């Protein structure tokens, strides 16, 4: 119990998030009850959320470094489109069969996504381009490649086996959701328990001190953005499978939401702070609200308003927590100075 209390205090943001999520869950249970809490709704939520959730994790990774990845949705669409080109190519399908085609398409999408992310990392780590500017540039570029190669039209006509993936379930749980959970657990594990994850927190906290402590900043940054790119690639595949087509401009609203979810999860936009596991909670929280909004028949625009207010409110909450923290630390320090003086 004492331990729990201590850990709650040490991560106030996460604690607030936990309570906030529980409060929302209870509130919705009372007001809406089975309208939200039913098996079918949970299943449809699981279908909808996977592609976005993967992106949110990518965004969270970039923000842990004190950066941001504006190109993540563009990268996902580009990967999806490249994947779609392979899948809809009748010649490949005819000569290799469904299984091999899908395998190639998936590999292509993952490679495209990872290379796209790696290029972000290269610009940021090796050329010292500001993350906002670098990913703004690649966002434009990736969207450009996508539009140029498709003429802005959707690419569709996939083998049945692939689109089945988008609707398949294992004892009620969508396959896409399982893929997401596996990736999420890997990312959370890597960032929480490995030396590499630790390094990322260090760089996000103070990149100069990290460099002076023999951390290879540039390599770490490239890897993180490549990871974000890989996740974008996965998301691209998920979108293609679920929607049965790939198109530029799909999921435009994901950008803002991914940042919102990361901030909500307590990941500081200036880097080095926050837990990746918080993203799971933040996702649960926003998704359940999302379906409550649907029950209440909110327009997409009102939803946007609410997201914006939540983002701002969360920034303020974090700011206040930081302020209280500093106050407490000042006291501790004065105590130590007094001891030193003795």
């Amino acid at each position, binding site marked *: 119990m004492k331990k729990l209390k201590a850990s709650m205090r040490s991560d106030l943001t996460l604690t607030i998030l936990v309570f906030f999520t529980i409060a929302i869950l209870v509130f919705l249970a009372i007001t809406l009850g089975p309208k939200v809490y039913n098996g079918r709704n949970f299943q449809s939520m699981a279908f909808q959320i996977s592609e976005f959730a993967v992106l949110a994790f990518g965004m969270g990774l970039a923000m842990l470094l004190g950066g941001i990845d504006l190109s993540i949705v563009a990268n996902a669409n580009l990967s999806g489109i490249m994947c779609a080109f392979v899948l809809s190519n009748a010649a490949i399908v005819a000569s290799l069969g469904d299984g091999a085609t899908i395998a190639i398409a998936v590999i292509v999408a993952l490679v495209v996504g990872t290379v796209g992310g790696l290029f972000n990392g290269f610009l940021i780590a090796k050329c010292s381009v500001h993350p906002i500017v670098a990913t703004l540039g690649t966002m434009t570029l990736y969207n450009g490649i996508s539009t140029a190669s498709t003429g802005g039209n959707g690419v569709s006509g996939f083998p049945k086996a692939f689109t089945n993936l988008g609707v398949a379930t294992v004892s009620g749980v969508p396959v896409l959701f399982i893929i997401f959970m596996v990736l999420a657990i890997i990312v959370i594990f890597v960032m929480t*328990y490995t*030396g590499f994850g630790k*390094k990322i927190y*260090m760089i996000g906290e103070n990149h100069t*001190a990290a460099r002076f402590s*023999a951390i290879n900043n540039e390599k770490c940054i490239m890897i993180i953005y490549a990871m974000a790119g890989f996740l974008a690639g996965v998301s691209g595949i998920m979108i293609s499978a679920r929607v049965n087509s790939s198109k530029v401009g799909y999921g435009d609203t994901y950008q803002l939401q991914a940042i919102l979810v990361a901030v909500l999860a307590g990941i500081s936009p200036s880097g*080095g702070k926050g837990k990746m596991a918080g993203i799971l909670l933040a996702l649960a929280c926003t998704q359940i609200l999302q379906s409550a909004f649907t029950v209440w028949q909110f327009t997409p625009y009102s939803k946007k308003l609410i997201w914006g207010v939540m983002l701002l409110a969360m920034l303020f909450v974090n700011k206040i927590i930081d302020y209280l923290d500093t106050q407490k630390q000042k006291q501790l*320090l004065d105590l*130590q100075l007094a001891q*030193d003086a003795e």
Partner: protein
Amino acid sequence: MEKNVLVATNISKSYVGVRALDKVSVTIKEGEVKCLAGENGCGKSTFVKLMSGVELADKGEGTIVLNGREIDKSKHNVISAINEGIQVIYQDLSLFDNMTVAENIALNKMIKEKRKLTNKKEVYEIAKAALEQIGVEMDLDAIIQEISIANRQIVAICRALALDAKLLFMDEPTTALTKKEIERLLDIVRALKAKGIAVVFISHKLDEVMSVADSITVFRDGKLVKNMEKDEFDVKKLVYYMTGREVEYSHYERKNTSDAPVLELKNMTKTGQYNNINLSVRAGDIVGLTGLLGSGRTELALSVFGLNPIEKGEICLNGKPVKIGSPVDAVRNGIALLPEERATQGLLLNKDMTDNVSVAILKQMTNAVGILNKKKRYDLANQMIKRFRVRIPNADTLIKTLSGGNQQKVVLGKWVASEPKLFILDSPTVGVDIGSKSEIYEQIQALAAEGMAVIIISDEVEEICANCNRVTVMFQGNIVKEFDEADMKGEDAQDKITEAIHSLTKSKAGKESETV
């Protein structure tokens, strides 16, 4: 009758982590050239910040009287200081790099006059008038970024003159200047004095200080220890007051018998930083690397640590030439560097003790697949807390809640954990309280006794004398003097080193004074 421009009485200032200034009283007369002397972190820069209104003095006792009027200490700010004619030329000069010379000179005056508009003609007039006051010509359209440091300094001075400065603080103005440029600057200072402007010089370079100052005020550990008038000037006395000798540290003697060098630097050269440096350090050596700011010592250390690419020359470790392209290479080769800037380069202030001591050796804290061993990290942290006697509640405590001395111990712990063969410490006791200081010395000496090769870079001659068995003095990128073990055992080692640090500038200043 002489008027006082500034009379500060019993002024104190505390920061988070340090008591920077403790009941200091200073008086500055019209047309006086005063020097504030003291080692890094002695409180002289803090004093300037308080007077110029950049920071507020502590509440409670203490008064500031400017131009004969007492001011409200709690409301003193940059604007009110400027209105009273106080101007500061910071070490970084605080110029706007992307703007022109003329604008940089004129802007502050126009702000003071609460102007809404600017026009080129007027900006030029203000700039020209200021430059004429000190008799210097300069291209008014040049962008600050593209002119030399010496000229930037002059721009900063002119900016102050344009504001009708009555009192001009100059923080380490000569650091980045060549000998000739320094002379030009000192001439300008004399010209200002003739106009009745009080100039307060903050400098490490004692000879310069003495050639131009009317009085010297010495600070140490946040306290004012001595006021000297021109007729009392004496290098030895000054050094004595600056360093203070009431604390005696145990002197280090090398016990190790192996003469094979751990580190050898051969003909290391980097244009504009250091020139043809040869240096060797054996196991158990503590080599003191000293010299004034801008002597190239930190640049050299950064090169050895892989953060400053070498142009020419070779680094040999244990007799083998190595290529060190990054700190990762350096640590792999057994080199550690305790950096000059503790808060920004040395520590992760928002992380806890465990993170900070394990950051450089995360590889050793993980298993084969890279998973961190929590117990190992805590054990390491607790071991270092014990070894360095860090006063900290537990290993989960954030580093920013520690005092300067304890913070520095954490940095030491971080590098000791990596078990380096060569440990470079750049200014290890800046901003560290006296108690922690001697503890840190003990630790450094113990490490060397165990066979580590150590280089200490420091301004403090006393620190060097106490800890080092050999000393190398640098000046403007060159090694100018080396003291071996026998030299260091001599009674007058400290004076000789002080002399060596200042000798070159001194002989030159002496010559100048003859010609004047």
